[in-house]
């Protein structure tokens, strides 16, 4: 009983393997699947690009993000080319690779944006607020010194008289 089960299992695997080898088109990617994969990859790239624009607006460093986007864009171009030649398997593979390369991209971009916002705030405090406050202190301090000196001179003058 156990032997028959094993034999059946082996036979099923063998048939499936032979079917895959001799009838590969049965498992090939269809034109629609390839097109949808390309559209999905293009949508992902646009989503990530918009995230990069936000990071840039916040003043963050986008060099690494752009490098990843460039890679994904290159793969998408190859996918589009393969699709135009009717090579849907290849087109699908490139499109999937393109999208996979951008996994976690938006989260990373959002984290960078938050960091950039904080850095921008402190940069503003240090380079704008602090100097203005400092200049006001210099002016007020100078006036205080001036009036102190004036009072002292006035006292000295009256003593001399």
């Amino acid at each position: 009983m156990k032997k028959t089960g094993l034999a059946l299992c082996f036979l099923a695997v063998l048939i499936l393997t032979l079917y895959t080898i001799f009838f590969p088109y049965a498992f090939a990617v269809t034109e629609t699947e390839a097109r949808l994969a390309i559209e999905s990859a293009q949508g992902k790239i646009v989503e990530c690009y918009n995230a990069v624009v936000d990071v840039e607006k916040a003043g963050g460093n986008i060099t690494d993000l752009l490098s990843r986007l460039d890679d994904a864009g290159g793969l998408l171009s190859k996918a589009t080319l393969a699709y135009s030649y009717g090579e849907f398997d290849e087109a699908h593979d490139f499109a999937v690779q393109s999208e996979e390369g951008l996994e976690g991209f938006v989260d990373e971009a959002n984290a960078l944006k938050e960091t950039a916002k904080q850095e921008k705030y402190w940069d503003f405090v240090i380079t704008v607020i602090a100097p203005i406050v400092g200049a006001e202190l210099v002016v007020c301090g100078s006036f205080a010194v001036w009036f102190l000196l004036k009072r002292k001179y006035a006292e000295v003058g009256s003593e001399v008289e």
Partner: protein
Amino acid sequence: MKLDEHRALFIVVTGILALLVVSPALDRLLVFPRTEFFTELWLLDSNLRAEDYPFNITRNQDYSVFLGVGNRLGYCAYYLVQVKFRNQTQSAPTSFGPIENRTPSGLPTLFNISAFVADGHVWEQPLTFSFNYVYNETLSKVEFLGLRLNDVWLGMSDYTVSWDPVRRGFFGFLFFELWLYNASANSFHYHGRFVSLRLNMTVS
């Protein structure tokens, strides 16, 4: 000595000191706003100069150029460079006049190169290409089989170049149109710029 005699000096010294302290803030605040927003597009030879471009093309011979894009739009831009080829009788894109009136070539694109460029930055990529073609003596035409661009094979089965009896050659143009992604329209638009290589397909 009267203190009032030194009032002017005291005020000047205080003013200079205050200006020195506030200078980092002035550096940030007194910036003239940018008024010109544009994109640069260029093509350089293999030595990154504008002097020794490939011209006489031999079949299956590699040639190199550098394609560059400079972004001065004020934001990170998503560009698409459409690689196209035309002969002397086919339509060329336009790059003069208001951008909205400029038109791309109606020819199909052979390949798209995407480029993401941060504001104020430059994107430059080497391009190595070679043409495969045959000479049809009967029709006096060069018939293309394909273009290899950075190890990507691009089919050109419908492309031909006829003999130019005036300039004595088989002339074609490999050109690169610049397209820009418009986020509000969620599509690419011709950005009114292109660069082109005039090539002579030698058949001897």
